[in-house]
Protein backbone atom coordinates (compact mmCIF):
# COMPACT_ATOMS: atom_id res chain seq x y z
CA UNK A 1 0.00 0.00 0.00
CA UNK A 2 1.53 3.29 -1.16
CA UNK A 3 0.62 6.73 0.07
CA UNK A 4 1.72 9.86 -1.77
CA UNK A 5 1.38 13.50 -0.71
CA UNK A 6 1.14 16.94 -2.30
CA UNK A 7 2.77 20.10 -0.99
CA UNK A 8 -0.80 21.31 -0.42
CA UNK A 9 -1.12 18.57 2.22
CA UNK A 10 -3.47 16.20 0.41
CA UNK A 11 -2.69 12.49 0.44
CA UNK A 12 -3.67 9.73 -1.92
CA UNK A 13 -3.47 6.16 -0.65
CA UNK A 14 -3.23 3.82 -3.61
CA UNK A 15 -5.32 0.64 -3.47
CA UNK A 16 -5.13 -1.14 -6.81
CA UNK A 17 -6.34 1.28 -9.47
CA UNK A 18 -8.18 3.36 -6.87
CA UNK A 19 -6.89 6.13 -4.66
CA UNK A 20 -8.24 7.22 -1.27
CA UNK A 21 -7.86 11.00 -0.94
CA UNK A 22 -7.76 13.02 2.26
CA UNK A 23 -5.75 15.67 4.06
CA UNK A 24 -2.68 14.98 6.14
CA UNK A 25 -2.57 14.94 9.90
CA UNK A 26 -0.43 18.09 9.74
CA UNK A 27 -3.15 19.78 7.67
CA UNK A 28 -5.97 18.89 10.05
CA UNK A 29 -3.93 20.22 12.96
CA UNK A 30 -3.30 23.47 11.10
CA UNK A 31 -6.98 23.85 10.22
CA UNK A 32 -8.28 23.15 13.69
CA UNK A 33 -11.78 21.88 14.38
CA UNK A 34 -13.38 20.78 11.13
CA UNK A 35 -17.08 21.64 11.14
CA UNK A 36 -18.12 20.86 7.56
CA UNK A 37 -16.75 19.07 4.51
CA UNK A 38 -18.22 19.63 1.07
CA UNK A 39 -17.62 16.56 -1.07
CA UNK A 40 -17.96 16.13 -4.84
CA UNK A 41 -20.67 14.14 -6.58
CA UNK A 42 -19.91 10.49 -7.20
CA UNK A 43 -19.10 10.05 -10.88
CA UNK A 44 -17.49 13.46 -11.22
CA UNK A 45 -14.23 13.56 -13.15
CA UNK A 46 -11.45 15.55 -11.51
CA UNK A 47 -8.27 16.70 -13.19
CA UNK A 48 -5.09 16.70 -11.10
CA UNK A 49 -5.05 19.96 -9.16
CA UNK A 50 -8.78 20.61 -9.58
CA UNK A 51 -10.90 21.50 -6.55
CA UNK A 52 -12.11 18.20 -5.13
CA UNK A 53 -13.63 19.24 -1.82
CA UNK A 54 -13.92 22.12 0.61
CA UNK A 55 -13.09 21.71 4.26
CA UNK A 56 -14.47 24.26 6.72
CA UNK A 57 -12.99 24.88 10.13
CA UNK A 58 -14.58 27.20 12.69
CA UNK A 59 -12.48 29.99 11.26
CA UNK A 60 -12.30 29.52 7.50
CA UNK A 61 -12.96 27.48 4.37
CA UNK A 62 -10.08 25.77 2.55
CA UNK A 63 -10.06 24.02 -0.81
CA UNK A 64 -8.83 20.49 -1.16
CA UNK A 65 -7.36 19.68 -4.58
CA UNK A 66 -7.26 16.36 -6.39
CA UNK A 67 -3.70 15.03 -6.00
CA UNK A 68 -4.13 12.97 -9.18
CA UNK A 69 -6.69 12.85 -11.98
CA UNK A 70 -9.57 10.46 -11.64
CA UNK A 71 -13.26 9.71 -11.43
CA UNK A 72 -14.97 9.94 -8.03
CA UNK A 73 -16.06 6.43 -7.06
CA UNK A 74 -17.20 7.10 -3.51
CA UNK A 75 -17.24 9.84 -0.89
CA UNK A 76 -16.97 9.45 2.88
CA UNK A 77 -20.53 9.92 4.07
CA UNK A 78 -19.32 9.68 7.69
CA UNK A 79 -18.11 13.28 7.34
CA UNK A 80 -21.64 14.58 6.76
CA UNK A 81 -22.66 14.15 10.38
CA UNK A 82 -19.26 13.90 12.05
CA UNK A 83 -16.85 16.20 10.19
CA UNK A 84 -14.65 16.16 13.30
CA UNK A 85 -13.54 12.67 12.20
CA UNK A 86 -11.03 14.53 10.00
CA UNK A 87 -9.37 15.84 13.17
CA UNK A 88 -9.53 12.51 14.97
CA UNK A 89 -8.18 10.31 12.20
CA UNK A 90 -7.19 12.23 9.07
CA UNK A 91 -5.20 9.35 7.60
CA UNK A 92 -7.84 6.73 8.36
CA UNK A 93 -11.57 7.19 9.00
CA UNK A 94 -11.33 10.87 8.07
CA UNK A 95 -10.74 10.24 4.35
CA UNK A 96 -12.63 12.41 1.87
CA UNK A 97 -13.13 10.54 -1.38
CA UNK A 98 -12.13 7.55 -3.45
CA UNK A 99 -10.95 8.07 -7.04
CA UNK A 100 -10.44 5.70 -9.94
CA UNK A 101 -6.95 6.84 -10.88
CA UNK A 102 -6.89 7.55 -14.61
CA UNK A 103 -3.20 8.39 -14.99
CA UNK A 104 -1.07 6.40 -12.51
CA UNK A 105 2.11 8.09 -13.76
CA UNK A 106 0.94 11.26 -11.98
CA UNK A 107 1.74 9.51 -8.71
CA UNK A 108 5.44 9.68 -9.57
CA UNK A 109 5.39 13.45 -9.27
CA UNK A 110 4.05 13.37 -5.69
CA UNK A 111 5.98 13.21 -2.43
CA UNK A 112 6.69 9.96 -0.63
CA UNK A 113 5.86 9.68 3.07
CA UNK A 114 9.47 10.45 3.92
CA UNK A 115 9.69 13.41 1.53
CA UNK A 116 6.44 14.80 2.85
CA UNK A 117 7.55 14.57 6.49
CA UNK A 118 10.77 16.39 5.49
CA UNK A 119 8.68 19.04 3.75
CA UNK A 120 6.45 19.52 6.81
CA UNK A 121 9.53 19.86 8.99
CA UNK A 122 10.90 22.53 6.66
CA UNK A 123 7.77 24.69 6.86
CA UNK A 124 6.90 24.33 10.55
Amino acid sequence: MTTRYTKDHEYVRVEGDAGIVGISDYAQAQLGDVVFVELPAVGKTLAKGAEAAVVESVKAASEVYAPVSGEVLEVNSLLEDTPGTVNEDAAGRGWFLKLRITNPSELDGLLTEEQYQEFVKSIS
Partner: protein
Amino acid sequence: MAEQAHSDEPLLVTPLHAEHVALGARMVPFAGYDMPVQYPTGIMTEHNWTREHAGLFDVSHMGQALLVGPDHETTARALETLIPADIVNLKPGQQRYSQLLSEEGGILDDLMVTRSGDPAEDGKLVLVVNASMKEADYAHMQARLPANVKLVRSDDRALLAIQGPKAAEVMARLAPDTADMTFMAVKATKVAGLDVHLSRSGYTGEDGYEISVKAKDAVALWRALLADPEVKAIGLGARDSLRLEAGLCLYGHDIDTTTSPIEGGLIWSIQKRRREEGGFPGAARIQREIKDGAARVRVGLKPEGRAPAREGSIITTPDGREVGIVTSGGFGPTVNGPVAMGYVSKDVSAVGTDLHLVVRGKPIPAKVAAMPFAPHRYKR
Protein backbone atom coordinates in the same frame (compact mmCIF):
# COMPACT_ATOMS: atom_id res chain seq x y z
CA MET B 1 -5.21 23.20 0.42
CA ALA B 2 -4.98 26.94 -0.02
CA GLU B 3 -3.36 28.96 2.73
CA GLN B 4 -3.83 32.62 3.48
CA ALA B 5 -1.00 34.95 2.56
CA HIS B 6 0.52 36.89 5.42
CA SER B 7 1.82 40.44 5.27
CA ASP B 8 5.52 41.02 5.76
CA GLU B 9 5.11 44.29 7.66
CA PRO B 10 6.68 44.35 11.12
CA LEU B 11 4.03 43.55 13.69
CA LEU B 12 3.39 45.21 17.02
CA VAL B 13 3.15 43.06 20.13
CA THR B 14 1.15 43.40 23.34
CA PRO B 15 2.78 43.19 26.78
CA LEU B 16 1.48 39.61 26.95
CA HIS B 17 3.06 38.40 23.71
CA ALA B 18 5.63 36.16 25.40
CA GLU B 19 2.88 34.63 27.58
CA HIS B 20 0.94 33.59 24.47
CA VAL B 21 4.02 32.10 22.84
CA ALA B 22 4.88 30.22 26.04
CA LEU B 23 1.35 28.76 26.11
CA GLY B 24 1.86 27.43 22.59
CA ALA B 25 -0.51 29.85 20.89
CA ARG B 26 -0.71 30.06 17.15
CA MET B 27 0.14 33.70 16.46
CA VAL B 28 -1.34 35.56 13.49
CA PRO B 29 -1.27 39.15 12.28
CA PHE B 30 -4.37 41.05 13.39
CA ALA B 31 -4.82 44.81 13.04
CA GLY B 32 -1.05 45.23 12.89
CA TYR B 33 -0.40 43.11 15.99
CA ASP B 34 0.97 39.60 16.35
CA MET B 35 -1.95 38.04 18.22
CA PRO B 36 -2.99 34.57 19.43
CA VAL B 37 -5.73 33.17 17.19
CA GLN B 38 -5.89 29.98 19.26
CA TYR B 39 -4.03 27.99 21.89
CA PRO B 40 -3.23 24.28 21.47
CA THR B 41 -6.68 22.97 22.46
CA GLY B 42 -8.31 24.83 19.55
CA ILE B 43 -11.12 27.26 18.89
CA MET B 44 -14.01 24.89 19.61
CA THR B 45 -12.69 23.90 23.04
CA GLU B 46 -11.86 27.51 23.89
CA HIS B 47 -15.31 28.68 22.82
CA ASN B 48 -17.06 26.03 24.89
CA TRP B 49 -14.80 26.65 27.88
CA THR B 50 -15.76 30.33 27.84
CA ARG B 51 -19.48 29.46 27.73
CA GLU B 52 -19.10 26.98 30.61
CA HIS B 53 -16.28 28.37 32.77
CA ALA B 54 -14.16 31.50 32.30
CA GLY B 55 -12.03 32.54 29.33
CA LEU B 56 -9.18 35.02 29.55
CA PHE B 57 -8.51 37.24 26.53
CA ASP B 58 -5.66 39.60 25.75
CA VAL B 59 -7.26 42.57 24.03
CA SER B 60 -4.38 44.95 24.65
CA HIS B 61 -4.26 45.74 20.94
CA MET B 62 -7.40 47.81 21.36
CA GLY B 63 -7.01 51.56 21.65
CA GLN B 64 -7.33 53.04 25.12
CA ALA B 65 -7.42 56.80 25.47
CA LEU B 66 -8.70 59.57 27.72
CA LEU B 67 -10.64 62.67 26.89
CA VAL B 68 -9.63 65.29 29.42
CA GLY B 69 -11.63 68.48 29.89
CA PRO B 70 -12.36 70.94 32.69
CA ASP B 71 -15.56 69.23 33.86
CA HIS B 72 -17.89 66.40 32.85
CA GLU B 73 -20.39 68.61 31.06
CA THR B 74 -17.71 70.18 28.84
CA THR B 75 -15.99 66.90 27.96
CA ALA B 76 -19.27 65.09 27.39
CA ARG B 77 -20.64 67.84 25.14
CA ALA B 78 -17.44 67.79 23.10
CA LEU B 79 -17.68 64.02 22.58
CA GLU B 80 -21.39 64.27 21.81
CA THR B 81 -20.55 66.29 18.69
CA LEU B 82 -18.89 63.11 17.33
CA ILE B 83 -21.11 60.28 18.63
CA PRO B 84 -24.88 59.81 19.02
CA ALA B 85 -24.95 58.51 22.62
CA ASP B 86 -26.04 60.62 25.58
CA ILE B 87 -22.81 61.15 27.49
CA VAL B 88 -23.86 64.25 29.43
CA ASN B 89 -26.29 62.09 31.42
CA LEU B 90 -23.97 59.10 31.72
CA LYS B 91 -23.79 58.45 35.45
CA PRO B 92 -20.48 58.31 37.30
CA GLY B 93 -19.14 54.76 37.33
CA GLN B 94 -20.97 53.76 34.15
CA GLN B 95 -19.95 52.76 30.63
CA ARG B 96 -21.84 53.21 27.38
CA TYR B 97 -21.45 51.77 23.85
CA SER B 98 -21.48 54.20 20.94
CA GLN B 99 -20.15 54.94 17.46
CA LEU B 100 -17.97 57.63 15.91
CA LEU B 101 -20.03 58.87 12.97
CA SER B 102 -19.18 60.41 9.61
CA GLU B 103 -21.04 63.45 8.29
CA GLU B 104 -23.10 61.00 6.21
CA GLY B 105 -24.11 59.07 9.35
CA GLY B 106 -21.84 56.13 8.52
CA ILE B 107 -19.89 54.43 11.29
CA LEU B 108 -16.20 55.37 11.46
CA ASP B 109 -15.68 53.05 14.43
CA ASP B 110 -17.55 51.75 17.45
CA LEU B 111 -16.30 52.40 20.94
CA MET B 112 -16.90 52.22 24.67
CA VAL B 113 -17.15 55.43 26.67
CA THR B 114 -16.64 55.36 30.44
CA ARG B 115 -17.25 57.96 33.11
CA SER B 116 -15.20 57.34 36.20
CA GLY B 117 -16.96 56.89 39.52
CA ASP B 118 -14.32 59.01 41.25
CA PRO B 119 -15.35 62.71 41.66
CA ALA B 120 -11.66 63.65 41.39
CA GLU B 121 -11.76 62.31 37.81
CA ASP B 122 -14.66 64.58 36.82
CA GLY B 123 -14.08 65.88 33.31
CA LYS B 124 -12.32 62.73 32.14
CA LEU B 125 -13.85 60.10 29.88
CA VAL B 126 -12.17 56.80 29.11
CA LEU B 127 -12.47 55.56 25.53
CA VAL B 128 -11.79 52.10 24.12
CA VAL B 129 -11.69 51.88 20.32
CA ASN B 130 -10.87 49.16 17.81
CA ALA B 131 -7.22 48.30 17.23
CA SER B 132 -7.51 48.59 13.47
CA MET B 133 -9.05 52.06 13.71
CA LYS B 134 -7.25 53.68 16.62
CA GLU B 135 -4.87 55.93 14.67
CA ALA B 136 -7.69 57.14 12.42
CA ASP B 137 -10.01 57.62 15.40
CA TYR B 138 -7.49 59.63 17.38
CA ALA B 139 -6.71 61.88 14.41
CA HIS B 140 -10.42 62.32 13.74
CA MET B 141 -11.14 63.31 17.33
CA GLN B 142 -8.09 65.53 17.77
CA ALA B 143 -9.04 67.50 14.66
CA ARG B 144 -12.53 68.16 16.03
CA LEU B 145 -12.23 68.56 19.79
CA PRO B 146 -12.37 72.06 21.28
CA ALA B 147 -9.16 73.53 22.70
CA ASN B 148 -10.16 72.79 26.30
CA VAL B 149 -10.72 69.06 25.73
CA LYS B 150 -7.61 66.98 25.05
CA LEU B 151 -7.24 63.45 23.78
CA VAL B 152 -4.56 61.60 25.74
CA ARG B 153 -3.49 58.19 24.51
CA SER B 154 -3.15 55.46 27.13
CA ASP B 155 -0.63 53.41 25.18
CA ASP B 156 1.03 52.42 28.46
CA ARG B 157 -1.98 50.29 29.40
CA ALA B 158 -2.90 46.69 28.61
CA LEU B 159 -6.47 45.35 28.42
CA LEU B 160 -7.58 41.89 29.53
CA ALA B 161 -11.06 40.42 29.39
CA ILE B 162 -12.36 37.61 31.56
CA GLN B 163 -15.63 36.19 30.27
CA GLY B 164 -17.95 33.37 31.18
CA PRO B 165 -20.30 32.13 33.90
CA LYS B 166 -17.40 31.60 36.33
CA ALA B 167 -15.78 35.01 35.69
CA ALA B 168 -17.50 36.68 38.62
CA GLU B 169 -16.47 34.07 41.19
CA VAL B 170 -12.91 34.05 39.88
CA MET B 171 -12.77 37.82 40.17
CA ALA B 172 -14.37 37.78 43.61
CA ARG B 173 -11.49 35.60 44.83
CA LEU B 174 -8.97 38.22 43.66
CA ALA B 175 -11.02 41.38 44.21
CA PRO B 176 -14.10 40.94 46.43
CA ASP B 177 -15.40 44.44 45.63
CA THR B 178 -16.07 43.47 41.99
CA ALA B 179 -18.86 41.02 42.85
CA ASP B 180 -21.70 43.51 43.20
CA MET B 181 -20.97 45.42 39.98
CA THR B 182 -23.70 45.20 37.34
CA PHE B 183 -23.42 45.12 33.55
CA MET B 184 -21.65 48.24 32.22
CA ALA B 185 -20.60 49.40 35.68
CA VAL B 186 -16.99 50.53 36.06
CA LYS B 187 -14.67 50.69 39.03
CA ALA B 188 -11.07 51.46 39.96
CA THR B 189 -9.78 48.82 42.33
CA LYS B 190 -7.01 46.30 42.94
CA VAL B 191 -7.05 42.81 41.42
CA ALA B 192 -4.44 40.48 42.89
CA GLY B 193 -2.89 43.58 44.43
CA LEU B 194 -2.53 45.39 41.09
CA ASP B 195 -4.18 48.73 40.33
CA VAL B 196 -6.80 48.34 37.61
CA HIS B 197 -9.77 50.06 36.02
CA LEU B 198 -12.40 47.53 35.17
CA SER B 199 -15.84 47.35 33.69
CA ARG B 200 -18.42 44.60 33.88
CA SER B 201 -18.72 44.09 30.16
CA GLY B 202 -17.29 42.13 27.28
CA TYR B 203 -17.70 40.86 23.76
CA THR B 204 -18.93 37.30 24.18
CA GLY B 205 -22.50 37.65 25.46
CA GLU B 206 -21.35 36.20 28.78
CA ASP B 207 -21.02 37.86 32.15
CA GLY B 208 -17.50 39.12 32.71
CA TYR B 209 -15.09 42.00 33.04
CA GLU B 210 -12.72 44.01 30.92
CA ILE B 211 -9.70 45.00 32.96
CA SER B 212 -7.37 47.85 32.08
CA VAL B 213 -3.98 47.62 33.76
CA LYS B 214 -0.61 49.32 33.41
CA ALA B 215 1.45 47.51 30.78
CA LYS B 216 4.15 46.72 33.35
CA ASP B 217 1.57 44.86 35.49
CA ALA B 218 -0.11 42.99 32.64
CA VAL B 219 1.88 39.77 32.96
CA ALA B 220 1.31 39.58 36.72
CA LEU B 221 -2.43 40.12 36.28
CA TRP B 222 -2.62 37.60 33.41
CA ARG B 223 -0.85 34.96 35.50
CA ALA B 224 -2.93 35.65 38.60
CA LEU B 225 -6.13 35.14 36.62
CA LEU B 226 -4.84 32.09 34.74
CA ALA B 227 -3.79 30.49 38.02
CA ASP B 228 -7.46 29.89 38.80
CA PRO B 229 -8.47 26.41 37.56
CA GLU B 230 -11.68 27.87 36.12
CA VAL B 231 -9.69 30.11 33.75
CA LYS B 232 -8.11 29.26 30.40
CA ALA B 233 -6.53 31.54 27.80
CA ILE B 234 -8.76 32.12 24.78
CA GLY B 235 -7.64 33.36 21.37
CA LEU B 236 -9.14 35.65 18.76
CA GLY B 237 -10.70 32.74 16.89
CA ALA B 238 -13.06 31.86 19.72
CA ARG B 239 -13.55 35.55 20.47
CA ASP B 240 -15.02 35.85 16.97
CA SER B 241 -17.31 32.81 17.23
CA LEU B 242 -18.46 33.92 20.70
CA ARG B 243 -19.31 37.46 19.59
CA LEU B 244 -21.04 36.17 16.45
CA GLU B 245 -23.30 33.89 18.50
CA ALA B 246 -23.93 36.87 20.80
CA GLY B 247 -25.06 38.91 17.76
CA LEU B 248 -22.41 41.57 18.38
CA CYS B 249 -21.01 43.61 15.50
CA LEU B 250 -17.41 43.39 14.34
CA TYR B 251 -16.23 46.73 13.00
CA GLY B 252 -15.15 46.64 9.35
CA HIS B 253 -17.42 43.67 8.75
CA ASP B 254 -20.91 44.13 10.23
CA ILE B 255 -20.65 47.89 10.52
CA ASP B 256 -18.52 50.36 8.60
CA THR B 257 -18.64 53.78 6.95
CA THR B 258 -21.40 52.60 4.60
CA THR B 259 -23.75 51.52 7.41
CA SER B 260 -25.65 53.75 9.79
CA PRO B 261 -26.35 52.80 13.40
CA ILE B 262 -30.03 52.39 12.49
CA GLU B 263 -29.28 50.00 9.62
CA GLY B 264 -26.95 48.18 11.98
CA GLY B 265 -29.70 47.65 14.56
CA LEU B 266 -27.91 49.85 17.09
CA ILE B 267 -30.76 52.27 17.78
CA TRP B 268 -30.74 51.07 21.40
CA SER B 269 -27.36 52.82 21.78
CA ILE B 270 -28.85 56.24 20.88
CA GLN B 271 -30.62 57.58 23.92
CA LYS B 272 -33.90 59.50 23.68
CA ARG B 273 -32.46 62.98 24.16
CA ARG B 274 -29.98 62.53 21.31
CA ARG B 275 -32.62 61.03 18.98
CA GLU B 276 -34.72 64.14 19.49
CA GLU B 277 -32.04 66.82 19.66
CA GLY B 278 -29.61 65.44 17.08
CA GLY B 279 -26.38 67.45 17.10
CA PHE B 280 -24.16 64.55 16.00
CA PRO B 281 -22.68 63.88 12.54
CA GLY B 282 -25.22 62.49 10.10
CA ALA B 283 -28.11 63.36 12.44
CA ALA B 284 -30.45 64.24 9.57
CA ARG B 285 -30.10 60.78 8.00
CA ILE B 286 -30.26 58.96 11.30
CA GLN B 287 -33.32 60.84 12.52
CA ARG B 288 -35.01 60.14 9.17
CA GLU B 289 -34.19 56.44 9.47
CA ILE B 290 -35.51 56.38 13.03
CA LYS B 291 -38.78 57.87 11.78
CA ASP B 292 -39.24 56.01 8.49
CA GLY B 293 -37.08 52.92 8.99
CA ALA B 294 -33.92 52.12 7.06
CA ALA B 295 -34.09 50.59 3.57
CA ARG B 296 -31.87 47.73 4.69
CA VAL B 297 -31.18 46.28 8.11
CA ARG B 298 -28.78 43.93 9.84
CA VAL B 299 -30.38 40.58 10.68
CA GLY B 300 -29.41 37.22 12.07
CA LEU B 301 -29.41 34.32 9.61
CA LYS B 302 -29.67 30.61 10.39
CA PRO B 303 -28.61 28.44 7.45
CA GLU B 304 -30.14 24.97 7.13
CA GLY B 305 -27.75 22.03 7.30
CA ARG B 306 -24.14 22.30 8.37
CA ALA B 307 -22.39 24.38 5.69
CA PRO B 308 -21.26 27.75 7.07
CA ALA B 309 -22.09 30.80 4.94
CA ARG B 310 -19.12 33.15 5.26
CA GLU B 311 -18.76 36.90 4.97
CA GLY B 312 -19.49 38.03 1.42
CA SER B 313 -22.10 35.37 0.63
CA ILE B 314 -24.92 36.87 -1.42
CA ILE B 315 -28.41 36.69 0.10
CA THR B 316 -31.37 36.09 -2.22
CA THR B 317 -35.05 35.36 -1.89
CA PRO B 318 -36.02 31.73 -2.62
CA ASP B 319 -36.88 32.82 -6.19
CA GLY B 320 -33.40 34.27 -6.70
CA ARG B 321 -33.86 38.02 -6.16
CA GLU B 322 -30.70 39.48 -4.62
CA VAL B 323 -31.63 41.16 -1.34
CA GLY B 324 -28.42 41.44 0.65
CA ILE B 325 -25.03 40.16 1.76
CA VAL B 326 -23.60 38.20 4.69
CA THR B 327 -21.21 40.31 6.79
CA SER B 328 -20.19 37.67 9.36
CA GLY B 329 -20.75 33.97 9.20
CA GLY B 330 -19.31 30.77 10.50
CA PHE B 331 -19.89 27.85 12.75
CA GLY B 332 -21.40 28.49 16.17
CA PRO B 333 -20.12 25.85 18.60
CA THR B 334 -22.81 26.63 21.21
CA VAL B 335 -25.55 26.58 18.58
CA ASN B 336 -23.81 23.51 17.11
CA GLY B 337 -24.44 24.70 13.59
CA PRO B 338 -23.78 27.50 11.17
CA VAL B 339 -24.82 31.05 12.11
CA ALA B 340 -24.49 34.32 10.22
CA MET B 341 -25.50 37.93 10.16
CA GLY B 342 -25.89 40.30 7.26
CA TYR B 343 -27.83 43.12 5.70
CA VAL B 344 -31.10 42.56 3.86
CA SER B 345 -33.80 44.76 2.36
CA LYS B 346 -36.36 45.77 4.95
CA ASP B 347 -39.17 43.83 3.18
CA VAL B 348 -37.42 40.50 3.84
CA SER B 349 -36.06 41.27 7.31
CA ALA B 350 -38.80 39.79 9.52
CA VAL B 351 -37.75 36.90 11.76
CA GLY B 352 -38.73 33.63 10.08
CA THR B 353 -38.43 34.92 6.49
CA ASP B 354 -37.11 32.23 4.13
CA LEU B 355 -34.01 33.30 2.22
CA HIS B 356 -31.12 31.70 0.36
CA LEU B 357 -27.43 32.22 1.06
CA VAL B 358 -25.25 31.58 -1.97
CA VAL B 359 -22.25 29.48 -0.92
CA ARG B 360 -19.78 28.54 -3.65
CA GLY B 361 -22.45 29.19 -6.26
CA LYS B 362 -25.07 27.03 -4.55
CA PRO B 363 -28.12 28.43 -2.76
CA ILE B 364 -28.41 27.27 0.85
CA PRO B 365 -31.83 27.75 2.46
CA ALA B 366 -31.74 29.96 5.56
CA LYS B 367 -34.17 31.78 7.79
CA VAL B 368 -33.96 35.24 9.26
CA ALA B 369 -33.33 34.55 12.95
CA ALA B 370 -33.59 36.55 16.14
CA MET B 371 -30.24 37.48 17.69
CA PRO B 372 -28.46 36.67 19.88
CA PHE B 373 -28.08 33.04 18.76
CA ALA B 374 -26.78 32.19 22.24
CA PRO B 375 -28.61 34.02 25.04
CA HIS B 376 -26.83 36.94 26.71
CA ARG B 377 -26.01 36.24 30.33
CA TYR B 378 -25.13 39.72 31.53
CA LYS B 379 -25.33 40.58 35.22
CA ARG B 380 -28.16 43.10 35.32
